């Protein structure tokens, strides 16, 4: 299990990186954290003639948080993104998802953007980008462009990135003060790719009633599917603890909807049947929505309390 031979490039500017990628396309692979590429090389499942190591390119290792959201540079490692307090405040879903990305040692090297570029439908950060309606910034020989998450993931391990293009950053829109989010997963072992996972985002009105609910699904098809579940749970007031009997029907309906929509794309593998995955999509949708709802209430009331304190 040793990598095949390749030519190694270590560009020191973005322009040089893009130029090398263009010159070597389609035979070049980008190396950042290496946690996805190098296993493929070691197993000789990938044999690029050129490896373009972008870790010496300056400026790609920054997390920028503004009012609009969080911009994550291509060299930002999962560990560093998870440790960034401003990013966690603006987009809590990041930290919620990052703790489920493999194990800490992998997160120490693996990059968030690299995970997105790898486009594994079991990856938390790809699902988060899809759920939040984020985008990636792309550099190419001609300049730069932006690809919306909805247009990025085109198939299993496939993106709409053109040959020779490099993702320089991912942008996650801010969640807003009256929103909450949650990840719910079932994995065979702690740290494994989820057998099924759900990332949920819930928005509340000032009366703490649900006005919007969306969920993204991991391991339920070739790409991270995003469903709008607002219809099923609109108007409910999320709460910590047991759910009122009437509300529980509404959450169950959201679960049913999720199962009906994601089930047809669910596949069987050695870890789970398609039926079990579909069942989990139903169960975890309810769990994630309830948790995201409770999170939204906490955030909204903290915000209100902070506002009252200042007044």
């Amino acid at each position, binding site marked *: *299990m*040793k*990598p*095949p*031979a*390749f*030519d*190694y490039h*270590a560009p020191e500017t973005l322009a040089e990186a893009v130029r090398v990628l263009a010159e070597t396309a389609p035979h070049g692979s980008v*190396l950042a954290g*290496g*946690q996805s590429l*190098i*296993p493929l*090389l*070691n*197993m000789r499942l990938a044999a690029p003639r050129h*490896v373009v*190591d972008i*870790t010496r390119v300056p400026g790609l290792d920054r997390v920028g948080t503004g009012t609009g959201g969080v911009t994550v540079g291509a060299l930002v490692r999962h*560990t560093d993104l998870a440790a960034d307090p401003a990013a966690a405040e603006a987009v809590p879903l990041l930290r919620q998802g990052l703790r489920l990305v*493999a*194990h*800490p*040692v*992998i997160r*120490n*090297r693996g990059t968030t953007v690299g995970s997105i570029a790898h486009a594994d439908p079991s990856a938390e950060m790809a699902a988060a980008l899809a759920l939040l309606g984020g985008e990636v910034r792309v550099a190419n020989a001609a300049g730069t462009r932006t690809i919306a998450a909805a247009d990025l993931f085109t198939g299993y391990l496939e993106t709409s990135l053109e040959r020779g293009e490099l993702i320089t950053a991912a942008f996650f829109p801010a969640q807003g003060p009256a929103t909450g989010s949650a990840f719910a997963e079932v994995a065979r072992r*702690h*740290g494994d790719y989820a057998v099924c996972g759900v990332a949920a985002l819930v928005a509340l009105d000032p009366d703490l009633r649900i006005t919007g609910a969306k969920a993204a699904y991991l391991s339920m098809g070739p790409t991270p599917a995003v469903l709008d579940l607002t219809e099923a749970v609109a108007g409910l007031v999320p709460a910590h603890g047991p759910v009122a009997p009437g509300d529980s029907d509404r959450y169950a309906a959201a679960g049913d909807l999720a199962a009906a929509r994601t089930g047809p794309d669910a596949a069987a593998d050695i870890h789970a049947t398609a039926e079990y995955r579909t069942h989990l999509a139903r169960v975890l949708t309810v769990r994630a929505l309830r948790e995201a709802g409770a999170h939204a209430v906490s955030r909204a009331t903290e915000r209100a309390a902070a506002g009252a304190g200042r007044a």
Partner: protein
Amino acid sequence: MGERMHDIRLSVNGVPHAATVPARRLLSDCLRHDLGLTGTHVGCEHGVCGACTVLVDGRPARSCLMLAVGAEGHELTTVEGLADPGGPLHPVQQAFRECHGLQCGFCTPGFLTLIAAYLEEHPDPTEAEAREAVAGNLCRCTGYTNIVAAVLRAAELRRAGPAAVPEPAVPAEERP
């Protein structure tokens, strides 16, 4: 069809090393076979088992998932660098010995480097935290019970400081 070689300089355990390697040389192989630091072991070469864990700028990383050419400019720490060769064991090593945290010893260097770094940031873990801290490395011998115990014991030894006399795990033999 000769493969292009790269002259690299690596800093390992505070010591500068030079090596000439092809670009595809994994850091794990470079440490072991080019630099002779065979304490770092290789168990799966796809990043799951953690036997090859070393510290890169103080942070645990899988050396089988890094290229040696990519490690230039970083400070690497391997199991050989945890304690001075002639000196006392590092608290984590000492704790593994006291708690019987190793059997065959093959996965052990990966656990030691991992835990040494973990305790730098989490000096006083609970048992549950200790269990989670080691949950990314595989051990096939110990069932982890004594590794978790060793994390807690190492934390205790660190807090006691280098001057503290380690508690013997067994009644000391009488000497004449």
